[in-house]
């Protein structure tokens, strides 16, 4: 069979699969990207930290249920086929995302609001657990053996592009609701945050229409015609030692490390730039957007390379570079905008104090806004809020201090460069992994077998990275980069296991 015939129609398959997967990732990430806004809307405001933690927990719940989605939909995909299974996951994801955008907030319906959000978030996690394995399997089963890495890499770009689009839609919506920027942001925080959720339904309807026109995977159809499909995919995947050992190897030798590298390079990097470096909202997101834009083509580059030299060493080298350089790169991010490394323009400093009397008391809320300018063009706004008590000698124990930096152009592009390197590691570990997982398991139990290690690795180990890293910074408060301990330890263990136990050989005839 010549190459033209082999790849005939493959682009249609890739387009339809990737579009749906892209939308699923978009749906999944807008929730995470809007964690703070959602906390204000759906969780009791008495304790902002508790509200944020609740949302992060909900966010984590979205990741933790992913392995269960992998089991439920993976089994379904091996029993009834790939096409209808990942059509179902798309409907569930789109429906729950749209529904989150429609839920009245806590002030209107009380605790029903966070409960509904939690349920819908769990459905999102389940749906995502079923989607990726289906899409990767579907594309791989249409691909010629010698270009499996290259063709599946388009599916691999969707997770990062989903994040890219979610950040872009949020930024655009945040600035288009009013001509006045401050009013626009206020409107966004009030009701405009719903827009990114609601528009998802349009994207999902388009994607469902396209996917309905697709045909079942040829390999699965062949198995079905021959009556060779699995009758119990879960038992065959995890009840047989020969397959279970490969599931464990895929998890501990590949997906576990891939997951932490993925989330450290993108989500934790964004969280670090915003919450530790204190870079303002828009800049902390556009830094990620630019870095994603520049780095995304490398998913295809490294996956294509894996067709020629094997999957193993590209992934291992990606993990090695990540664990060796994380401390340096994140310290570099911090130092780039650290005021200790800047020269202040003292004469430009602005201090504005406002005092508002608290009703029915003689005490006041005092807000001191200090704006500092630096010679390189950076400016910092620090808002210190405390209570001015009328009782002599009584002071606020711990004033609330919020800091926001608007960084200079040179620092901005330097940060883009550092995040680009972080995402480059992501492309090395993530680009070849779909082909790698597909080649580990036979067609009849492939959907089930590859979905579980992928979603434990990516969803649990990776998805919890920002959460665990932030938690570590609250335990070891003096160390700004202590959060990196988690991805470095997990990445190192995974890299050692991968290097020792994984084969680099690509089986040319795995499509059977």
């Amino acid at each position, binding site marked *: 069979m010549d190459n033209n015939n082999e790849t005939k129609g493959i682009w249609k398959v890739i387009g339809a699969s990737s579009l749906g997967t892209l939308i699923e990732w978009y749906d999944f990430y807008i929730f995470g990207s809007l964690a703070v806004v959602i906390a204000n809307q759906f969780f009791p405001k008495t304790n902002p930290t508790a509200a944020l933690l609740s949302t992060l927990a909900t966010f984590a719940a979205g990741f933790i249920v992913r392995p269960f989605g992998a089991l439920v939909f993976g089994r379904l995909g091996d029993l009834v086929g790939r096409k209808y299974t990942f059509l179902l996951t798309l409907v569930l994801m789109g429906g729950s995302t749209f529904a989150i955008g429609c839920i009245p907030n806590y002030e209107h319906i009380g605790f029903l609001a966070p409960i509904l959000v939690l349920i819908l978030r769990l459905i999102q996690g389940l749906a995502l657990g079923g989607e990726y394995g289906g899409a990767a399997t579907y594309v791989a089963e249409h691909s010629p053996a010698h270009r499996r890495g290259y063709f599946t890499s388009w599916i691999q770009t969707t997770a990062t592009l989903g994040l890219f689009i979610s950040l872009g839609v949020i930024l655009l919506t945040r600035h288009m609701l009013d001509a006045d920027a401050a009013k626009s942001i206020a409107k966004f925080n009030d009701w405009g945050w719903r827009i990114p959720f609601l528009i998802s339904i349009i994207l999902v309807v388009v994607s469902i229409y396209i996917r309905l026109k697709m045909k079942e995977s040829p390999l699965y159809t062949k198995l079905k015609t021959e009556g060779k499909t699995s009758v119990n995919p879960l038992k065959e995947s995890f009840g047989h030692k*020969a397959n279970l050992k490969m599931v464990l*190897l895929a998890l501990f030798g590949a997906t576990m490390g891939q997951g932490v590298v993925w989330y450290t390079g993108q989500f934790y990097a964004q969280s670090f730039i915003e919450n530790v470096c204190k870079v303002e909202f828009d800049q902390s997101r556009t830094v990620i957007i630019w870095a994603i834009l520049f780095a995304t083509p490398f998913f295809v580059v490294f996956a294509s390379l894996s067709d020629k030299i094997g999957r193993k060493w590209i992934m291992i080298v990606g993990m090695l570079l990540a664990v060796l350089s994380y401390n340096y790169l994140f310290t570099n991010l911090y130092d780039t905008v650290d005021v200790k490394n800047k020269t202040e323009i003292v004469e430009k400093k602005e201090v504005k104090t406002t005092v508002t009397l608290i009703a029915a008391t003689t005490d006041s809320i005092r807000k001191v806004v200090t704006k500092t300018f630096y010679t390189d063009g950076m400016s910092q706004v620090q808002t210190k809020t405390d209570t001015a008590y009328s009782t002599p000698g009584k002071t606020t124990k711990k004033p609330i201090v919020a800091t926001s930096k608007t960084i200079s152009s040179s620092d901005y592009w330097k940060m883009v460069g550092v995040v680009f390197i972080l995402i480059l590691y992501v492309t090395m570990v993530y680009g070849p992994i779909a082909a790698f997982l597909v080649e580990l398991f036979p067609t009849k139990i492939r959907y089930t077998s590859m979905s579980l290690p992928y979603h434990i690795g990516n969803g649990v180990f990776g998805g919890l990275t920002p959460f665990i890293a932030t938690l570590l910074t609250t335990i070891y408060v003096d160390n700004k980069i202590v959060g990196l301990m988690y991805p470095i330890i997990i990445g190192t*263990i995974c890299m050692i*296991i991968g290097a020792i136990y994984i084969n680099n050989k690509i089986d040319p005839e795995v499509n059977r």
Partner: protein
Amino acid sequence: MNALKKYMGLVWVILGPLSIHYLLQTASSEILKKPGIDTQIQWGVFIGVFYPIAIGFILFGLYALEGNYDHLPEASEELDDYDVKPL
């Protein structure tokens, strides 16, 4: 290489219970330090999720010790063996 795979299997078998011990110890000290439903839920989730993964890690180490990773499938014919080798 096969000898290294087996010896390292012992490391994974030991690392599994150690990670569970570290997780439980950190969870209990953090809950005692900051008692409250948030802390309990948070650490409860971590234990609930990572405990079975640590068991899987021990199993992985045992398989390595037994030499199950000495040879990995290199052709599709070997993948079909899954049908005839129950656990």
